[in-house]
């Protein structure tokens, strides 16, 4: 398919997406769970794609994502809480010490930068480590970061273990979609660039990549830092979505969740990560909710259903998906418009046969 045609298709798809979103906003009640899924899904999609950049495309097994999201979320929150709310939010710390605010978009970029700077510093010592050693080191860093943000001594800045809140948030689904969309687009551009190829080369064979003149340390550092930049922005968006931030939420289990999404979507597939994010959020926070409630059909109580059952079913579903889609939903392929052609051909075949039997 020619580049031009691809571009036209892409623009058409984006326009269609925009129209669908607008229709949803107009037609569905504001309380619909769909919006929650769309908002959180978009945010998770960004973070998952950023994680895929490191884990899937560069082959670095990093488990620090939650830590970088935390930094992003806090940076955003700290610099955007309106001054008049400081007294209430920082009630144990005399209104905090950061006594200025910046515009939302600036704060988003700052969130990314803060995460990227941390990642850069962390990367210097740990990126030399291989596979699982790197994983545990990054996980460790995320935990250390969390402990620091909860520390009382930093209270005037971070509000210690108390929530940060009252910062500006978003109402519509457009905001997270547009921000995530732009970020993901940049990541995709990067992946398809010369640097993206270098990352993939490192993933496939470090020694050969080095023999091709690729500076391993520098490129790993780049991938790690850029991924963290976007994770930071994702964290800031998550803060906006949650309307509150507390370090306690950014546990390693959040990283595992993201890793799940990345692997289920397909390591090395951006569209897989995006798709898996929405499915994951919808399944875990919407579709399966009914399993948690005692349900009666007439006087008959449906067995097993009850509080906590949802999570049991959810874990079983994860296992099933992993066992049956070993390479993830998308493998390392990307969604392509060419696939539409395949589907059309498939249906034509089916349809054709039916007509014959008539």
């Amino acid at each position: 398919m020619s580049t031009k045609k691809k571009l036209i298709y892409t623009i058409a798809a984006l326009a269609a997406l925009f129209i669908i979103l607008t229709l949803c906003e107009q037609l569905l009640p504001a309380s619909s769970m769909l919006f929650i899924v769309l908002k959180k899904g978009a945010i998770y999609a960004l973070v998952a794609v950023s994680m895929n950049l490191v884990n899937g495309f560069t082959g670095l097994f990093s488990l620090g994502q939650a830590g970088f999201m935390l930094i992003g979320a806090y940076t955003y929150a700290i610099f955007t809480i309106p001054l008049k709310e400081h007294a209430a939010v920082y009630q144990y710390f005399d209104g905090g010490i950061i006594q200025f605010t910046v515009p939302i978009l600036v704060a988003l970029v700052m969130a990314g930068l803060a995460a990227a700077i941390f990642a850069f510093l962390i990367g210097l010592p740990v990126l030399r480590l291989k596979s699982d050693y790197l994983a545990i080191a990054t996980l460790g860093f995320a935990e250390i970061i969390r402990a620091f943000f909860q520390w009382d001594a930093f209270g005037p800045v971070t509000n210690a273990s108390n929530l940060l809140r009252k910062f500006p948030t978003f109402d519509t689904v457009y905001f997270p979609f547009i921000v995530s969309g732009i970020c993901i687009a940049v990541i995709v551009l990067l992946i398809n660039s010369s640097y993206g190829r270098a990352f993939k080369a490192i993933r496939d064979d470090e020694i050969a990549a080095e023999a091709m003149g690729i500076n391993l340390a520098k490129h790993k550092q780049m991938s790690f830092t850029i991924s963290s930049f976007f994770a930071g922005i994702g964290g800031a968006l998550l803060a906006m979505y949650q309307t509150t931030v507390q370090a306690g939420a950014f546990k390693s289990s959040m990283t595992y969740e993201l890793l799940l999404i990345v692997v289920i979507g397909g390591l090395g597939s951006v569209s897989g990560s995006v798709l898996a994010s929405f499915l994951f959020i919808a399944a875990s926070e919407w579709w399966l909710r009914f399993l948690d409630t005692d349900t009666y059909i007439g006087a008959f109580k449906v067995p097993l259903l009850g509080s906590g059952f949802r999570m049991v079913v959810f874990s079983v579903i994860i296992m099933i998906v992993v066992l049956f889609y070993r390479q993830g939903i998308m493998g390392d392929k990307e969604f392509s418009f060419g696939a539409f052609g395949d589907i059309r051909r498939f249906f034509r075949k089916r349809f054709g046969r039916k007509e014959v039997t008539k």
Partner: protein
Amino acid sequence: MEFITSNLPYLLAGISVGGQYALIAIGYTMVYGILRLINFAHGDIFMVAGFLMVYLSATLPIYVSLPLVILITVLLGFVVERVAYKPLRTAPRMSIMISAIGVSYLLQNCAFYFTSGLAKQYPVIPGISSSVAIAGATTKLVTLVTPVLTIVLVVVLVLLIKYTKIGMAMRAVSRDFETSQLMGIKINSVISTTFIIGSLLAAVASILYFSNYSTVTPTSGAMPGLKAFVAAVFGGIGSIPGAVVGAFIIGICENIIKGLGLTTFSDAFTFALLIIILVAKPTGLFGEKFTDKV
């Protein structure tokens, strides 16, 4: 004397925690050594063993429930391997790890669902649950039993892996399934054996650990699991003596840190120590470099 009485408790606690981490860590490191899999479910198997004891001992006498717990735990480890990992032998490593995370979620959520999440009291096991006084410090007998038992088990395991046929097969399987099969090794039974040994150790560790701390909750496997994993990395993943040394270092350091009053960072410190070690020795204390000739 004053110094000893006020500081001995930290050391005792450190040694016993270290021993328990060690037993869990060996399970991690063995499975890792063979499947290159971080078995995230290992800590949860340990937790399930704890609950099994709680429920079994409620109806059965201790001397029946004790072996039964070990047996069922081993069976659980075996089944988990067969159901969740075996079908993924040829899948990318990451998929198996996700499967392990899935199992971990499943075990935790099931435990939550069936126990409603409230802490359960672990039964008193005669012989190890009673308190003793050493040099003025009071502690449970289990504190003294743990390190001894750990050392004995480790020596046995190291001998097994270094000098027996099955041990050699384990090391062979760890690098190459296909070629191992060509040697006539039944890789499935070798892997199962590994899981059985690992689960056995987890069961023993759970008995010691919960006797010491007396409470079981659905999440009580998570932290020891993570710590044991850190210990395994610390010592160099795949190395059994490494895992044990790592576990003791972590257990003792943690308690000394707490004793110094730096409690906020006792976990952060563990990780910081780990990172420092890794930066100095990228494959852990006893980890061997991956031999990969250019």
